[in-house]
């Protein structure tokens, strides 16, 4: 299907849905319509407020995203009853008028009282929370131009750090809750409508770290009601074996009793990379001059014009987003159905992402005791990824010889092959235009997902509920890698056609039984929960590869002349028993106990089970008599919390890592006929003693509301200790194994402080709020077992090191100390194991250990590869019909290894360089930082050193949005009562980034290599991924009658 037909089919589907739901839910005839807007104390529209016609049980509605509602009522006088959680309900008499605007104020008594937070296997009133839970709601997500739900968390919740691997849409995202507790996967457990999502990336093709996709991008952020982040162990321990990295619970929108409402919202966006972000590279003359110094003569190209390679790769890309949903229901059945379409190109050629999604949730009551319901997500995503060899295209292409032009009108393809004649022998020039043209090179990944959950609930005795929930997460991936045959070398060599296709099938099934009992007696209130949960995961993949396709119009590997196929598969199972006891005395003293026992197939029988307990307590100081007596008018609510608990991690880099097993895809050719035969051998060291990783966390915090509800403050101190860390341990090659071994080694501590505060107020027509959050993370590896150090890096490089006493995976290399200026300096140079003779103009490397020579032992800590703190703050206000919000996000105390600059300042090969090399050493005193140009580099000036480590702190103006809400009455009369509410907005995402970093973007994650997955031991490496683009956004939200 081409792009156009996707678009049209998506739109058709949307229209179809609108028609169905509009026709189904046309309400009964009434005499008039009352419209209006419900606002909060700041004047902002309140979504989801229930508006009911008093005395008529079926006449009611809820407000839409902008706070508007529309309700048909019979003729005559009526009373509207308006209610919303946390606000004082109001009853408004309407006497013939058709428009009412109602302002609600927070209920000082009832404030937050009934607001619930989703905790594991149930909900809890926010005021009763004894653990550390952070939440965002649809308000924080809906109109932001985010591709996936996790992206929406950026800068919003204390303790949660979000880092995008690339600005390429649907690229993986690192979600870190309270630091890095393990060396393997640090991704939290995502639970979507009760179904735990497996955070693996099997759905990809030609797997490398740069072709991985974010599995959560299959979910439309617009379907989300709330995201709750369980940060401390008290909150997360109920998820036992998978909760060590925290748990993120995503709850999607469900229907509410009342008339059906249809809402449509969408935006158009244009994303781009500012030219000021481009690297300044040498022009033709400068390049030729540098290369001539390196012994390469490209003077024949001196009259050629400059070609701006970065400009050729970067593009202004379009984003389209449409969402439509219908929500409503009766007393016994409610529903919410939504459909979404998202189409986002990347800012570099060949990057694209598209999603069509359908979400349907409903709940039914049957008789007195029974409830049933389901939630279903069906989605299809398509992602275009830059082809192998053309990843990091903009950064890569900036290294091309600047006179090399990708176009040649005389060539059959209109492109210029890269040959010694067109670019000069040994000059670097890849025709990225060809490499990124999907007619010749294409990597495309499709993911089709069904995520469904159904539950039944029976309450035979008041307060006693049994619930059975069955969920499935079913993913079919289909990725292909295609290359067209070429007879000229455009930068990828002469080659035949090739088609690789991979089809992974991934299924997670989940079944949960829970029995809950709630009872209040006197001042005591108890909730008890017991449950059992079983999760099964299975994965299989078939890979087909065909070379020399019969005709490349048929893009199947099986029409090739050589065809190969492989399969792979994995499975695991988990069974857990869980329990929780919550006790509340007089609304003052709160205690929660959690325990879970898990058994996992991922470990041997002896090490299979683990028990994860937690306990937490809260004291509502403000409920005490002595406190209310003070009546200081400063504090409204004060709660102090403390918790202790344990959670586990069962994910290792390898499946069946405990079991000695053999790779059967090892071959040798033997016999007179040179037959290819199998030679099975182990390729991974099996560790039979492998077991859980356990993290123990202490959290002390307070929730404070002050100054008449104007100020909210939450503060937490956390200390998380991870023991028996599951580590992919790089082992000595002499063991016979190249790959690392999975092991439980040592201890990692993460501790820090989280502070979140909001202030809101109203001055005349202007209401505003200011909020901010700040998190510190101090990471320390307190033990590495008996291991002295782990030196690691992506793709076999040695860039990071982990030792006991420091944080995990710091940058580890040589320190530099200026440049040898003359022969006298050189004569004093120390013997250097990596130098075969220094000359003036070479870098002086520091003898760190003072043994009068420079060798591998002089490598030292040269930077920090994880942030020490991160923060976000926002400012929002309303003035009449206008609303404005500003959102900033940042992080600090982190360095980045600028591998791109290292490459472009090496002054060795035939690639283009940064203009910074113009300041290179050319004679005594000319530079003390940029060495001489030398093709052979006998001194190894380019070795990995602090030259390439930069401060990676940044502050980003993440989002700016200005909205305008149409006056409801005018809108109604203008549209003949068809449209009941409308808001238009303009927004800019990533408006500015304040940073001293000398690259596209300091927001980077792991070093790239063919090793997939996250890689905390090679973190914070910039290989030139696309920067986070600036997105200019034009959006609208409309509700229909």
């Amino acid at each position, binding site marked *: 299907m081409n792009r156009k037909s996707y678009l049209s089919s998506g739109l058709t589907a949307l229209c179809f849905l609108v028609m169905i739901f509009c026709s189904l839910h046309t309400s009964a005839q009434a005499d008039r319509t009352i419209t209006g807007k419900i606002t909060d104390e700041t004047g902002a529209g309140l979504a989801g407020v229930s508006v009911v016609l008093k005395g008529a049980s079926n006449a009611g509605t809820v407000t839409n995203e902008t706070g508007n509602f529309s309700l048909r009522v019979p003729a005559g006088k009526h009373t509207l009853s308006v209610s919303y959680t946390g606000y004082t309900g109001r009853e408004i008499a309407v006497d013939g008028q058709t428009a009412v605007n109602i302002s609600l104020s927070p209920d000082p008594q009832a404030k937050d009282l009934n607001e619930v937070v989703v905790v594991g296997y149930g909900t809890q009133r926010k005021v009763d929370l004894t653990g550390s839970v952070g939440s965002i709601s649809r308000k924080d997500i809906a109109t932001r131009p985010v591709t996936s739900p996790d992206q929406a968390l950026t800068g919003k919740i204390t303790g949660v750090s979000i880092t995008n691997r690339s600005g390429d849409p649907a690229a993986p995202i690192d979600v870190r809750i309270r630091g890095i507790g393990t060396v393997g996967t640090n991704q939290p457990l995502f639970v979507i409508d009760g179904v735990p999502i497996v955070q693996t990336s099997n759905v990809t093709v030609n797997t490398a770290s740069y072709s991985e996709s974010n599995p959560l991008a299959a979910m439309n952020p617009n379907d989300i009601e709330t995201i709750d982040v369980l940060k401390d162990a008290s909150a997360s321990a109920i998820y036992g074996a998978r909760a060590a990295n925290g748990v993120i619970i995503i709850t999607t929108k469900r229907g509410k009793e009342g008339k059906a409402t249809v809402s449509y919202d969408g935006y158009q966006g244009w994303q781009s990379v500012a030219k000021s972000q481009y690297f300044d590279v040498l022009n033709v003359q400068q390049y030729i001059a540098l290369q001539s110094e390196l012994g390469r003569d490209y003077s024949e190209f001196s009259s050629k014009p400059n070609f701006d390679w970065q400009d050729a790769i970067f593009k202004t890309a379009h984003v389209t987003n449409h969402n439509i949903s219908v929500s409503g229901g009766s007393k016994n059945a409610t529903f919410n159905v939504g459909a979404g379409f998202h189409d986002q190109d990347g800012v570099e050629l060949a990057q694209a992402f598209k999603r069509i999604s359908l979400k349907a949730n409903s709940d039914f009551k049957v008789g007195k005791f029974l409830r049933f319901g389901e939630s279903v997500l069906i989605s299809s995503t398509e992602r275009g990824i830059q082809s192998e060899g053309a990843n990091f295209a903009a950064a890569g292409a900036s290294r091309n010889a600047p006179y090399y032009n990708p176009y040649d009108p005389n060539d059959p393809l209109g492109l210029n092959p890269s040959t010694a004649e067109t670019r000069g022998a040994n000059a670097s020039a890849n025709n990225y235009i060809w490499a990124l043209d999907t007619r010749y090179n294409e990597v495309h990944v499709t993911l089709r997902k069904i995520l469904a959950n159904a539950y039944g609930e029976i309450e035979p005795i008041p307060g006693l509920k049994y619930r059975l929930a069955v969920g499935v997460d079913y993913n079919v991936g289909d990725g292909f890698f295609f290359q067209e045959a070429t007879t000229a070398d455009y930068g990828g060599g002469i080659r035949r056609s090739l088609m690789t296709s991979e089809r992974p099938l991934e299924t997670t099934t989940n079944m949960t039984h829970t029995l809950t009992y709630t009872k209040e007696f006197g001042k005591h209130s108890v909730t008890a929960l017991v449950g059992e949960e079983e999760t099964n995961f299975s994965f299989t993949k078939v890979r087909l590869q065909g070379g020399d396709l019969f005709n490349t119009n048929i893009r199947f590997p099986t029409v090739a002349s050589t065809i190969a196929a492989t399969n792979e598969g994995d499975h695991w199972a988990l069974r857990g028993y869980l329990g929780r006891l919550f006790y509340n005395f007089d609304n003052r003293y709160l205690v929660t106990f959690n325990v879970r026992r898990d058994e996992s197939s991922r470990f041997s029988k002896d090490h299979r089970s683990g028990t994860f307990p937690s306990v937490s307590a809260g004291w509502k100081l403000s409920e005490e008599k002595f406190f209310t007596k003070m009546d200081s008018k400063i504090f409204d609510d004060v709660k102090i919390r403390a918790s202790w608990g344990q959670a586990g991690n069962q994910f290792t880099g390898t499946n069946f890592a405990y079991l000695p097993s053999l790779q059967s895809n090892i071959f040798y050719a033997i016999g007179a006929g040179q037959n290819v035969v199998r030679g099975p051998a182990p390729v991974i060291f099996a560790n039979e003693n492998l077991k859980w990783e356990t993290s123990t966390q202490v959290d002390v915090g307070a929730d404070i509301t002050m100054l008449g509800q104007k100020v909210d403050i939450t503060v937490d101190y956390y200390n998380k200790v991870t023991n028996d860390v599951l580590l992919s341990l790089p082992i000595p090659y002499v063991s016979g*194994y190249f790959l690392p071994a999975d092991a439980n080694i040592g201890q990692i501590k993460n501790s820090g402080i989280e502070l979140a505060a909001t202030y809101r107020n109203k001055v005349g027509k202007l209401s505003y709020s200011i909020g901010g959050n700040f998190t510190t993370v101090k990471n320390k590896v307190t033990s590495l077992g008996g291991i002295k150090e782990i030196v690691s890096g992506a793709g076999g490089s040695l860039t990071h090191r982990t030792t006991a006493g420091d944080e995990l995976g710091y940058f580890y290399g040589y320190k530099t100390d200026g440049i040898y200026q003359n022969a006298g300096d050189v004569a004093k140079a120390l013997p250097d194991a990596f130098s075969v003779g220094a000359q003036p103009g070479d870098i002086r490397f520091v003898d760190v250990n003072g043994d009068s020579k420079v060798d591998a032992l002089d490598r030292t800590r040269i930077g920090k590869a994880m942030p020490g703190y991160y923060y976000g703050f926002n400012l929002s206000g309303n003035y009449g019909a206008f609303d404005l919000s500003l959102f900033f996000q940042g992080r600090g105390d982190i360095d980045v290894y600028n591998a791109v600059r290292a490459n472009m300042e090496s002054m060795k090969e035939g690639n283009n360089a940064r203009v910074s090399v113009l300041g290179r050493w050319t004679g005594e005193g000319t530079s003390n930082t940029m060495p001489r140009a030398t093709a052979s580099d006998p001194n190894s000036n380019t070795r990995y050193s602090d030259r390439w480590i930069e401060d990676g702190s940044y502050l980003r103006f993440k989002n700016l949005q200005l909205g305008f809400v149409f006056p409801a009455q005018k809108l109604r009369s203008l549209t003949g009562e068809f449209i009941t509410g409308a808001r238009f907005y303009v927004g800019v995402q990533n408006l500015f980034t304040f940073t001293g970093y000398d690259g596209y973007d300091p927001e980077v994650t792991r070093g790239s290599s063919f090793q997939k997955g996250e890689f905390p031991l090679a973190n914070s490496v910039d290989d030139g991924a696309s920067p986070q683009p600036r997105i200019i956004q034009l959006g609208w939200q409309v509700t229909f009658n």
Partner: protein
Amino acid sequence: MKSKIVLKGCLLGLIILLVINFSCNKLDLQPLDRLTSATFYKTAVDFDGAIFGGYSSITDLWGTSTETLNERGEFWAISLAATDDVTINGKAGGGGDLAHARDMDNTIFRASDLAFAAIYTQVYEGIARANIVIEAADNGINELTDEQKTQFVAEAKFIRAFFHFLALQMWGTPPLVLEVKKDLNNLASPNATQDALYAAILQDLQDAYAGLPASWDASNVGRATKWTAKAFEGKVDVWKKDWDAAIAAFATVKDEGPYSLFDGNADKIDNYLDNFDFKKENGVESIFEIQYGGPFSDDNLWVFDDTHSENFKASQGTGRPWYWNASNDAGAPGGAMGWYIPTQSLVDEFEAGDPRLEATIYRDGDTYYNRGVSAVPWDPAWSSNGMMVKKYFGIRNADNSAYSPNEQAGYNNERWYRYSEMLLLYAEALIEKGGGTSAEGMALVNEVRARVGLAASTNPDHRAAVRHERRVELAFEPHRWFDITRWDIGATVFGGAWKPFYKVFPFPQTEIDRSDGQLIQNEGY
């Protein structure tokens, strides 16, 4: 009322118990895509497979990978690019990929160079696979007969000796590993002494000689025989400078073994060319060849088949055509990178009239052949010094079936150890034993010369004669570097670029880092 509640409660409990009971999931799972050691190593077929796994590690010495260390056929960089026989083509394609091969060419060796890590990995992987076979032969559950056991252990010991000897040549005092490592906390090994290494290697080769068959049936040709083991024993003795032992071993092979020089062609140079002919693999002169075959599966050159995360397999070929064939970048037909070219120094080594020069090197005036390319005049512009290696190429190997369809992989076996090399080692042992002269030794040198039609050597310096003969006869076979270090002629060959500690290579820095002080880096690095 109360009884109703109890009844309801009981009913509910019953439902829950039933549902849970029927649904209980299985936790004892087995891998879907791998064998387990507990079910393997039983039949002779299993053991054949385990042995092939060991041989497979040898093929990876020339592996190309983007997944592991970014290897680019590293054993060529080590054994040839580093020497005075081969240099880097100034007109090569491939940009930065060949940077470290260029360092090798410039006699720059560093512990961090990936070549050393790449070879070290494969060496100890092969040793581990051999040790697994030796251990599994006594696992008590296999169905092997005593005869089969002896034979499999003998073959495993040959593989183990092959790798230990290579390690000794490379690093001087590498670790000696004679058992399967099982303790995660004790995986590193210290340096072994040369004495211990020689003793272990020779013992393994003697055991291999005792237990291996004299020949294999057609479907197993290419596996080591007892004569392979004996010939290696002599070679190891030469490195050990134990001339008597070497002479004894070589004499046994020469007198009793199955080998002979290719001879009998009308044109004498054809005798030499038969050695490198794709259609004459595992010929009479072949003591040990690394076996390549294909096409099989996808001919993806870019992965080590053993450790690729995608679980697909690589070509069973080498990247020889990719790295050595004439550079497409410089205009030659075909898609090759043409990294490596012969040096003038090597050309000069050939005496006038030695036909092996034309058989070994493309030069101006020659006719060039390639897969699917009919004869075209050799164009000196295709290489920065006008030359290209011709051994393993040329008209005899223009055969399509010797290459993968994408021309990157070649299926021509690597002739690791030829009978002519053994004769020259034999000659060397005799000459060294004779204090620099030996008529008997010169007779062997002349045997090698005669079959290409050259007259007997008149060089009175027998040591020089045999060294000359080795260089020209074995050009581009993986021996020159180890001859230079063995003869300790680095200063003569490389002049000022040579440093005495280059006699051995550095251990990989990663290995030093991971061995917790057990492995000591070679002096000077």
